[in-house]
């Protein structure tokens, strides 16, 4: 029997708080070198990420995804929406690799989103910034300043900044972009789907349980990343 408090059917009424949110920004390289199988696999990976989150009722209300593509230009493909509102974007590959501008836009998008949360009294989890590239920045030295901000934010615990290189990526520059806490990972072949499954599992883990800020235990990456790069 479900016991009510008191015999008069007095049941505690739950306050109608908004769900906590977990903001995730994907910075995706869609330059010309991604044409063909890589862009197809990347699209399939993003779609599988959405499906994985959708399978979890709580996570689908909490995870908010923003997609920024950089190929020829920097485009905000999707501003933050919860996963259930997100139609899967179809990314096309063209142009050069304005990675610095994308990183800058990603950071600004996150800060703007946090302001929206704070105004609305919504609690939020530590944001995720996830950069995937198969090249090197072609927009001058813009990336250096943006990378510094991202690294600082990661080191200060204001976001979790991950970088992933795809075959052909300049891992040396990616190493300079990445946070010292989290060296860049190299994707095995075109295992984008495995990468996004890992990302959805990690984001779900963070958005469903309470953790010590400094000890987020994420699943192993050896299903999709080359170890020892």
């Amino acid at each position, binding site marked *: 029997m479900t*016991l009510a408090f008191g015999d008069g059917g007095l049941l505690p009424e739950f306050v109608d708080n908004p769900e906590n949110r977990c903001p995730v920004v994907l910075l995706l390289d869609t330059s010309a070198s991604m044409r063909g199988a890589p862009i197809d696999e990347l699209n399939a990976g993003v779609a599988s990420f959405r499906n994985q989150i959708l399978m979890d009722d709580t996570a689908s209300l909490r995870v908010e995804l923003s997609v920024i593509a950089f190929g020829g230009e920097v485009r905000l493909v999707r501003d933050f929406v919860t996963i259930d509102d997100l139609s899967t974007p179809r990314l096309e590959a063209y142009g050069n690799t304005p990675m610095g501008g994308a990183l800058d836009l990603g950071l600004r998008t996150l800060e703007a989103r946090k302001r929206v949360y704070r105004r609305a009294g919504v609690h939020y989890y530590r944001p995720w910034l996830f950069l995937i590239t198969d090249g090197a920045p072609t927009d001058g030295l813009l990336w250096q300043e943006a990378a510094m901000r991202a690294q600082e934010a990661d080191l200060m615990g204001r976001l979790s900044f991950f970088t992933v290189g795809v075959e052909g990526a300049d891992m040396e520059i990616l190493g300079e972009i990445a946070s010292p806490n989290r060296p860049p990972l190299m994707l095995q072949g075109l295992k984008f789907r495995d990468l996004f499954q890992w990302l959805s599992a990690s984001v779900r883990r963070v958005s469903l349980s*309470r*953790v*010590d800020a400094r000890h987020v235990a994420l699943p192993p990456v050896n299903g999709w990343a080359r170890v020892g790069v």
Partner: protein
Amino acid sequence: MSWVAALDFAQGRHHRAAGVPCQDFGRVVHPAEDVLLGAIADGAGSAALGHLGAQAAVGAAIALLGPRLGANPGLRGDPAGGPGGADALFDGLLEAARAAISETARHQGRPIDALATTLTVFAAGPLGVAVFQIGDGWIVSRGPEGDYALVGHPQRGEYANETVFVTGADAEETLAITHIAEPIRFLCAATDGLTHVSIAAADDRPHAAFFQPLDSFIASTEDAADAHRAIRGFLRSEGLRARVEDDVTLMLGGWHPLGRA
């Protein structure tokens, strides 16, 4: 005149599904006439042995403060109403909790961080309550007149799933001690699992329609065993489980000015 109080805790559905033990723990005792002492703790989800940390911290709090309040129940119905106030009452508690956790960690052959836990401790009389707080557990009280109010504030970080722990290097700086020297009629203590359904996120205000039924119930219940059964039922009820995935702890205390029947 007397307190009627009871406490229970329950494993959340995510921990049950994952085979993780309930990481909440709590106890409530009567160390002296008219004094209620309670401790609740929430082991960190990220710590392998958070449940052992929570048990050790609560055990240390009751072991230290029970005899202390037994020997000196305070003045004028307020456990912290003596020389030194709440600081004197809770003196040495953080160290005792950390020592107990370290001891358990040593037995388990694990670092102290593996037993990370929050700790919220209160000592209440009819005319005052003092709260020791590390982390995001909370206490709501109500006097003979007036609204439900948080005693102190749950210590949450900027991010929704992050808080501070007794085992943290910064525990001493984050420790908050609050003392209210006013008549108390109702006390509710809980771990973070219940925050989302009972406290408005926008302004940290207790939701009166959540607390009123609990308050009326404990005010009209004369037997702690009945209170315990009711809390147990509520924490395991379908309605609550549908809304709360985390482990939960709930303590209710009611001051009965006319005493038990």
